[in-house]
């Protein structure tokens, strides 16, 4: 995907309908990564709706969401904001040479107790 990523792409990848959002802010209120994010979960929803995809793709916020399912669980309108964060993150890492983490970086990050689960999870999120 080297061409411009559109709102329609993100909606298709995520399966989310941002128009269902009534902007109560509960997703951001419950997000454990709130403090570390430039754009918060509720902002992902209305920015996708507005078509501000490039801004979201350029933001480090997409790597702060750890998919803990708190926003998905607690959204009263079943919007599932984390799925939008995931779709934006995928739109980035699916681009040639845009992996957020590569195999070469792994050895330096290991410690003897680190479970394999951490590495496979990070690769799923950071790499294509």
């Amino acid at each position: 995907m080297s061409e411009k990523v559109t709102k329609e792409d993100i909606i298709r990848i995520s399966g989310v309908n941002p128009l269902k959002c009534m902007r109560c802010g509960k997703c951001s209120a419950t997000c454990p990564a709130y403090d570390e994010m430039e754009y918060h979960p509720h902002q992902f929803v209305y920015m996708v709706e507005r078509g501000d995809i490039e801004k979201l793709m350029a933001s480090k916020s997409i790597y702060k969401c750890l998919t803990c399912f708190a926003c998905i669980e607690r959204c009263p309108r079943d919007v599932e904001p984390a799925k939008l964060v995931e779709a934006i993150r995928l739109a980035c890492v699916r681009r040639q040479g845009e992996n957020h983490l590569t195999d070469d970086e792994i050895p330096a990050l290991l410690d003897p107790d680190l479970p394999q689960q951490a590495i496979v999870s990070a690769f799923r999120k950071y790499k294509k």
Partner: protein
Amino acid sequence: MIYSYFPGCTLKTKAKDLDSYARMSAQALGITLEELPEWQCCGGVYPLAKDEIATKLSSVRALSASHKLGHDLVTLCSACHNVIKQVNRDMRYDEYISSRANNYLGADGQYHGETNVIHYLELLRDIVGFDELKKKVVKPFTGRKIGAYYGCLLLRPGDVMAMDDPENPKIIEDFIRAIGGEPVIYANRNECCGGYITLEDKSLASKRAQNIVDNAKSNGAELLVTACPLCLYNLTKNTSESAVPVKYFTELLAVALGLKEEL
């Protein structure tokens, strides 16, 4: 009773304790766990995107194998359970995902979400029964104040996991009671431990994990139990030395059943 069993990558390596005490205890409780003859790593996190098909296939193959064997599929690691159960839901209800995943299965036969996926804790609660388990305890944790740490993946999304109330769970607390301990309720028991972010940003994982152990300790917990290797790692390796100890729930189970000397 025979169940298919999916151990997952970490239970074969860094989390052997989670696995071995579970097998030992199951045997003592009259449950046969038969490891799937072939299985692949679940990938650790559920691929949320609609167009992610290949990343769901390891779960589909495990589910399909279990279906062919005619057994329910037991999982133990919170991450494996979350991934496999969510993929199972897709195979059953999401025609888009299911038809594409089935294209890959080809000659191996089709799969449409028939397998019943149960977590080891559900096995203890629903098949063995906590009352029956209590009768088999020979070394109770009398007087021990133990906190359940659920983390994020065991209970959420609640409508898919369908194990317990995701906001006010009690399955691990009931387990703690069954082995004679006193459960400690604390606010952060279902908050995220920081997960894989420890690879990229240790300070962030430490912040999350320290909040959890501090909250548990200030509510009187002297020991925490978990079902997730990454939670155990973050809560022990990314917290201060004085933090409350964390163990796999299966290790406490084995001790209570007299299969292991002590913690």
